[in-house]
């Protein structure tokens, strides 16, 4: 469980996180989405007990991150953005060292379990300096999973992994997220879409949107969008489609492709199809295109970006 109230963090005169409030329940995967420098890492560092907030409160697993920092740190698994590893240690020694710091009674078994979870059990005797970026990332993840933490905080967990490993790690996170609280940050929107129960979009230290990925799409899309494609050139079609009642924003995307919008609830697609056929065109494709999370994200974070420049 994570509960954050009016959390603010200043670095000198610069405000990195500005009065943010949110919650994450047990059994929930909460995605932290935002451009670089939005305050994701700072928030996660505060929650992991690395540094205290300037203002506001945060509770993790029922303990205050400032007053009961050690209790919080005992219950949190944290994977920082730059995976903290000792290159001069073997994978096993490194994880054993972390397990000892966490006073795990069956340290060696836990290390083996964690390595198995991230699929590194056959590399435990290798030196960390010889590992690839993806493997280092997985060792870092194993470190965060060692003590079976109640709350898992992962800063860009799939960065640097190859596509197959990305799938593995996402499955692993999904599995963990069934029972525990997972807070993960990413700037890959499809990842948030696939993985998270809820998404927080953060920009310039403020939360600009918070909802399930599906709702976010629905809420912000406003109008339904349709793309259609015909055989041959479609130069004259937009003019005809525009005349159909309820159709808005007709655009010719390429020679044979047109995009238009209609207000939710009044489906104009049958009328459009009839018009096209009547005009003598062969209709090849008529497809609804949802607003992707990418567009929502750009939409939400654009205003402030523009105003800064």
């Amino acid at each position, binding site marked *: 469980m994570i509960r954050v109230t009016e959390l603010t963090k200043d670095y000198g005169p610069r405000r990195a996180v500005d009065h943010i409030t949110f919650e994450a329940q047990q059994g929930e995967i909460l995605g932290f989405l935002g451009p670089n420098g939005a305050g994701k890492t700072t928030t996660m560092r505060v929650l992991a007990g*690395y540094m*205290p907030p300037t203002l506001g409160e945060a509770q993790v697993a029922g303990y205050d991150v400032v007053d009961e920092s050690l209790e919080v740190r005992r219950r949190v698994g944290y994977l920082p953005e730059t995976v903290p590893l000792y290159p001069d240690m073997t994978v096993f020694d490194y994880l054993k060292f972390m397990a000892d710091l966490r006073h795990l009674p069956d340290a060696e078994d836990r290390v083996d379990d964690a390595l198995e979870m991230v699929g590194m059990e056959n590399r435990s005797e290798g030196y960390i300096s010889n590992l690839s970026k993806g493997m280092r990332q997985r060792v870092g993840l194993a470190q965060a999973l060692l003590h079976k933490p109640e709350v898992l905080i992962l800063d860009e967990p799939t960065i640097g992994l190859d596509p197959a490993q990305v799938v593995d790690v996402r499955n692993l996170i999904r599995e963990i997220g069934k029972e525990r609280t997972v807070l993960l940050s990413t700037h890959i929107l499809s990842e948030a879409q696939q993985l998270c129960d809820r998404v927080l979009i953060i920009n310039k230290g403020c939360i600009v949107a918070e909802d399930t990925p599906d709702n976010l799409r629905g809420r912000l899309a406003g109008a339904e969008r349709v793309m259609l494609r015909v055989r041959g050139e479609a130069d004259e079609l937009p003019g005809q489609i525009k005349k159909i009642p309820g159709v808005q924003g007709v655009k010719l995307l390429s020679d044979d492709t047109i995009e238009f919008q209609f207000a939710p609830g009044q489906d104009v697609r049958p009328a459009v199809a009839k018009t096209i056929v009547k005009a003598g065109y062969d209709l090849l494709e008529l497809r609804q295109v949802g607003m992707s999370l990418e567009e929502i994200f750009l939409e939400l974070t654009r205003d402030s970006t523009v105003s800064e420049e």
Partner: protein
Amino acid sequence: MQNIWTIARREYKVYFNSPIAYVISLLILIVLGIMFALNIFFFAQNASQNYGSAPDISMITGPFAFILVLSLPALTMRLVSEEHRMGTMELLLTAPLRDWELVVGKWLGSFLFMLTLIGFTLLFPIILNFMVNPGIDQGLMMSAYLGIILVSAAFLGIGVGISAMFTNQFAAFFATLITFVVLWWMIGFPAEVLPAGAEVFRYLDMKTHFYDTLNAGVINLSDIIYFLSLTALGLFTGSISIESRRWR
């Protein structure tokens, strides 16, 4: 306590993978070996004027303390600063570990390494013991070695404290070296010229606590307290420094 030990054990092992630690150890042993050989040689040459006296172990421990001033900064410089540079500080500060446990663990690891090195130098008194009749002065040897151990503890404590203030280990090296040089040679100067208050500077002068007493076979509680206080001060500075970084 368990945390301190976990940190110390890792630190101790790191020294055995570190070229700098080997170079320093080798240097110390070679220099002490040469000092030892030269001393014995000249003593034997002038045997007629020695009137039955025998060389004692302070001929090794004296230069040893001097070498510590110049070499220990290289052993402590990376202790904490390296963690900052590698980003592993984030790992340690989010582990359930108190800041001071981290600092004390780092110090203990380096101290255990120094004890190992000091253990090797026991070769010299053992050899000397065979060479002189009726054997060396055991009391003086104990006292001088206690002195070396205390000086090492204090230097390492200060070194860890300074290392915690820097993210660059070379900056930490020079800051540590300067601190050692001031504490060992320079802080006593004002005592020579000041009309009043000289006692304070005389007390702070590190070398007198070693050369005048411990290395001459005199064990005073005040000297022991002096070195232990310096150690504690260094460790305290280190803890504060790490703690203050969290708030920045």
